């Protein structure tokens, strides 16, 4: 991870309740200077509220928010959005329809004298490569261009942080990837601190320096994209941040360590788990499951292909195991097992598996001491932070 | 830029208001009249000013609204004289304590007793009659019941031939109130029911009634005499004739315009002088071209009205008009008078 500076944005135990429903529940979050953090979660998880709290569009019930070292919400008082120096980019772009592109961008620069203002407008429009459209009105621009103007407008006053609320979801599929790449490029180029809210897993993983996964007003996990994808902190994160199947598994004591096995055979060794003997679940993502043609009911992993989805470079196979459980497996496009074909599933070698006990991930033998208590497992307040 | 223009507009408008007729800045007139009557009073007041040197200004609104304004203004009210177009309203204002009793031999002489308050809180100034108008092509005046003409219109022979004013109109209410005083509530109810059984056509304006009789869409209507006079003045060949109702009985229904001195007035002497003048020297000026009957028996009505001939008026009992008015409204509503 690249070395990062002091936190530009800091949320300390922030709670926001609408009526009786906590939209944001005791959330802690640090966004470091120059960092691009993505916040993801299912709809209604509070991710947009986090953004609105940072922007000052909502006032937290409890907790504090600190921007660039200054408390903007908390016991000391509340700073309204216009004095927070935050940039906002909305899904609907929210460009002022009665102003030209240049005047939209200049809107936040009214404290600059004219010459410097014009220069800054040219500069940021150049940044988003829209210099030649400065005189146009918003309705004369394409969706992607409008989004770039919205970013330029947000960047122009050099805000502490730019907040982007699902900025790409109003764009069509083909445009989205391109605009995203451009926008992220500009953010990185200018070293802008940014928080981007999205419901798109691919977007969250590919764009963010760090990813914050939220659920029901709480932070389920914060980490680098690799961390949240490869070492999910919970069953929710595991299944929300990509396809995942869950199989019951067992940790066997082995010479000098422990061995993890499940219905499709040995998963991996577990160094450091020596002497542990416990029931767990293992998270298996489709790319971690290998398939071989033919099956012998006596061997582990025997099953039948029930569905084949062709995705171009890869083909997603769904396999029903002898136990009735299903697993998914990515296969290169040349490999196609027809529906109904007997196959044997196994775990690809070299895997560092994610183990679950109840709904939480377990990372050490200490976590599995005692009986598994599926339902009573701590669903509640997450204290996991990277 | 835009804001300054807006502000400028607003400011200049304010200045314009201040300049245009905001009488706060003018010295108030000697006498201030709250009048429900508008017709020609202005000329009468000017004449009064010329003769006495006392200036008069007035505002015009409906009786009921002016009364509420006087009450709401309380002690601050500038009103010296309250002038209405209906006896019931005069009685009501007096009943509510808004009018002051005045002692005036001149008014005692000028205004017959039935046209003023027994306690001298108000005085009638002009009399109007509400009587029957017919189309001579369709009606022989002998058809009317000379003893009780209003009640007689309940007779089935008038079926489909009648037009009258709506129940919302004070003229109608006052007429029915007087019928209640004459015949009791049951009797009045039978009469109104009879009109309705005759499919009386309701209209919302006396002029419309006169036009309808002229056009022959109605044979008979009940109207104020002065509207007929006024219409005839403009269109002498109107095919309508006036019939004085109930001349062999209680007489024709009449009502008055009148005035009283406001209790909170700070200039009661001048107010009284104005009313006295209106009831005497000012009678012609007050009635002007409105074709009403002067309340003062020593003053002659105008020529056109005189051509309608003499008639016997029904006794005007303002208290009965006032008190029965509510009953009349309820009765008309009960019978679904307006359909």
């Amino acid at each position, binding site marked *: 991870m690249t070395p990062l500076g002091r936190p530009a944005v800091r949320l300390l135990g922030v709670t926001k309740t609408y009526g009786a429903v906590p939209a944001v529940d*005791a959330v802690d979050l640090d966004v470091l200077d120059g960092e691009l953090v993505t916040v993801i979660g299912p709809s209604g998880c509070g991710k947009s509220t986090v953004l609105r709290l940072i922007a*000052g*569009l909502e006032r937290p019930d409890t907790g504090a928010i600190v921007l660039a070292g200054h408390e903007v919400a908390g016991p000391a008082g509340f700073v309204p959005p216009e004095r927070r120096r*935050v940039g906002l980019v909305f899904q609907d772009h929210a460009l002022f329809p009665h102003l030209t592109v240049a005047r939209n961008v200049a809107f936040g620069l009214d404290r600059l004298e004219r010459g410097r203002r014009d220069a800054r407008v040219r500069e940021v429009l150049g940044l988003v490569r829209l210099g030649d459209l400065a005189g146009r009105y918003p309705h004369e621009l394409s969706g992607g261009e409008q989004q770039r103007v919205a970013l330029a407008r947000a960047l122009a006053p050099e805000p502490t942080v730019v907040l982007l609320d699902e900025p790409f979801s109003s764009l069509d599929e083909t445009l989205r990837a391109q605009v995203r790449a451009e926008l992220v490029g500009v953010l990185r180029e200018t070293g802008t601190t940014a928080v981007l809210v999205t419901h798109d897993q691919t977007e969250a993983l590919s764009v963010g320096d760090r990813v914050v996964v939220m659920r029901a007003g709480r932070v389920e996990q914060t980490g680098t994209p690799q961390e949240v994808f490869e070492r999910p902190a919970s069953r929710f994160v595991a299944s929300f941040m990509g396809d995942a199947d869950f199989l019951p598994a067992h940790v066997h004591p082995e010479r000098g360590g422990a061995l993890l096995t499940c219905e499709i055979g040995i998963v991996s060794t577990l160094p450091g788990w020596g002497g542990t003997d416990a029931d767990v679940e293992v998270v298996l993502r489709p790319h971690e499951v290998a398939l071989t043609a033919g099956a012998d009911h006596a061997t582990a992993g025997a099953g039948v292909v029930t569905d084949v989805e062709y995705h171009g470079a890869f083909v997603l196979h769904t396999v029903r195991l002898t136990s009735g459980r299903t697993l998914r497996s990515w296969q290169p496009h040349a490999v196609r097992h027809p529906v109904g074909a007997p196959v044997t599933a196994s775990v690809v070698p070299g895997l560092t598996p994610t183990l679950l006990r109840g709904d939480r991930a377990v990372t050490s033998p200490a976590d599995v001491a005692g009986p598994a208590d599926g339902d009573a497992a*701590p*669903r509640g307040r997450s204290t996991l932070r990277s | 830029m835009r804001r300054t223009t807006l502000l400028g507009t607003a400011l200049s408008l304010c200045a314009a208001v201040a300049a*245009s007729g905001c009488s*706060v800045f003018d010295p108030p007139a000697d006498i201030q009249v709250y009048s429900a009557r508008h017709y020609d009073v202005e000329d009468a007041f000017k004449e009064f000013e010329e003769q006495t040197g006392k200036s008069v200004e007035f505002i015009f609104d409906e009786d009921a609204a002016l009364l509420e304004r006087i009450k709401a203004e309380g002690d601050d009210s500038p009103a010296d004289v309250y002038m209405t177009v209906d006896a019931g309203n005069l009685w009501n204002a007096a009943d509510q304590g808004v009018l002051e009793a005045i002692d005036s031999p001149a008014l005692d002489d000028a205004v017959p007793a039935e046209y003023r308050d027994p306690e001298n809180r108000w005085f009638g100034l002009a009399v109007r009659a509400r009587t029957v108008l017919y189309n001579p092509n369709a009606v022989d005046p002998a058809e009317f019941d000379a003893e009780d003409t209003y009640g007689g219109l309940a007779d089935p022979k008038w079926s489909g031939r009648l037009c009258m004013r709506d129940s919302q109109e004070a003229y109608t209410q006052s007429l029915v109130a007087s019928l209640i005083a004459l015949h009791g509530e049951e009797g009045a109810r039978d009469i109104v029911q009879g009109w309705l059984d005759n499919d009386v056509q309701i209209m919302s304006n006396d002029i419309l009634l006169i036009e309808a009789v002229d056009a022959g*869409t109605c044979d008979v209507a009940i109207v104020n005499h002065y509207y007929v006079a006024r219409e005839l003045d403009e269109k002498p060949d109107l095919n309508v004739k006036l019939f004085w109702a109930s001349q062999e009985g209680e007489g024709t229904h009449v009502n008055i315009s009148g005035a009283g001195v406001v209790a909170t007035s700070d200039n009661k002497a001048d107010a009284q002088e104005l009313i006295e003048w209106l009831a005497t020297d000012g009678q012609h000026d007050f009635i002007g071209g409105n074709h009403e009957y002067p309340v003062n028996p020593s003053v002659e009505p105008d020529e056109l009205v005189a051509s309608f001939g003499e008639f016997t008026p029904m006794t005007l009992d303002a208290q009965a008009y006032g008190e029965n*008015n509510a009953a009349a409204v309820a009765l008309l509503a009960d019978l679904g008078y307006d359909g």
Partner: protein
Amino acid sequence: MTELATTTPSRAVRRVPGRGRTPWSVAVVVVALLVAAPVLAVLVDVTRGSAPAWPRDLDRMVVTTLLLMLGVGVGTLVVGAGLAWLVTAYRFVGRDTMVWLLVLPLAMPAYILGFVFLSTFDEAGPVQGAVRAVLGDGAGLSVRSLPGCVVVMSLTLYPYVYLLARAAFVEQGPRTRDAARTLGAGRARTFFRVLLPLARPSLAAGLALVMMEVLTDFATVQYFGVRTVSVGVYSVWRGTYDFGSAVQLASLVLLFALAVLAGERMMRGRARFTQPGRGAPSDAVTLAGWRGGLALAACLLTLAAGFFVPVGRLAGWGVQRFASDGTASIDARFGEYLVNSVVVASLAAVVCCSLAVLIGHAVKLGGGRVVRGFAGLTTFGYAVPGAVVGIGTLLFFAAVDDLVEALGVPGGTGLLVTGSVAGILYAYAVRFLGPAYQAVDASFAKVSPSMTQSALALGAPPRRVLTRVHLPLVRPGIAVALVLVAVDAVKELPVVLLLRPFGFTTVSVWVYQLAAENFWSLAALPALLIVLLALVPVVLLFRQVRAVDEGARRGS
């Protein structure tokens, strides 16, 4: 387990501290209280009296009122929205003139219309007379009925819907329309399935205004013998001298208004009506030949019934009078009345629109249910009969006067109200903030919250958001509001009659004085002048609308 405690939602619901701005929210509350004050003053005053004596046919009045509202609601919606669409989506000969001519029936004072209509169309009138002359004597048709009233009120009140609907159609993003068209929807289907529903907030606002007019109208319904609750109010007041009962009956009218406003909110629904992109209806289709003629005929027919015929009849009377004795009741003083009317109407329009924008802006800034509730409260004055507002104003200022006097100021405020036009302006603000706010709010509804929030986040304090973002965006609504208030104020009667100082006469007072005594030939020309006067804001409005259209077109 501690976790359980946190997952169970707390029973004690905490009031969400609004994220609105205290000064702006407070301003809304103050305005709302000032608007409510006269009505409250009246209610307080009458509750001191005895139990109300309600008219015996109250149940029939309620039914009549509902029927009238339904009829006029449907009528104005069809005529108003239909014509707005016709002149927005199509181009035909005379369209540009029709666009603003169609607003004119608004300029006709109700107390003139009723008489003119009946004298023209009823049995004894010239129209049926002509029919009889051609077809021979037959049964006459009495126009003086509920259906007659519905037709007349629809033909004269439709401009409320028309104005707001047209503003909505003009503001509608062309992209929405294009999207609908590219999805294969025909022109008609696009209108009924996409554009009309999108214009719902504006249609609802227009309809709400129509309903309020219907509720408080007294003059027209009285002429048609339609006994609504408002007629009942006057009937009780004048007929039984019982002001207390009359006001309590008027509060029933307020209940109706409450239902209307609730209905309006429902009609707006939960949908958000903000849409990206604005622009002129650039794809207006040209109707040539007989189809253009048909479109023009539709406009002219509506105008003929609601405007040309009454104007023609008035003009006829005026000319007749002038020919007979050379007087037209327009003398030197009439100029003064005219100035008074213009000044008061302009001031009222500016005051009401400023307040409406202030309220709309405060609501946009947030503040939640409380501020929105108070904002809604400000529209109620429109549903209170003018005379009640007038008396409430008197009572309210009398109470203030007593208070000031009690505080030791000798003489108190004196005759602050009836001594100047301040009282009239105050009562007009109470009465006409409703239409102003409806019009402005319908425009505000189309400003997305993200627009406001972006402006704030860009460092603009609320005042700058108002001047640089909200004001320019709601300009069409403001223009409509100015016209509505100005026209309403020019022809307004009960308030100005009741609250004017001595010597202060407006054109409408003058006309009424003549009309009240049935001097129609004398009232004719001044009445036409009211119509002319109302033309001014209407023309100004459409010049502005055209400028907006062109502004939007310029870049493309």
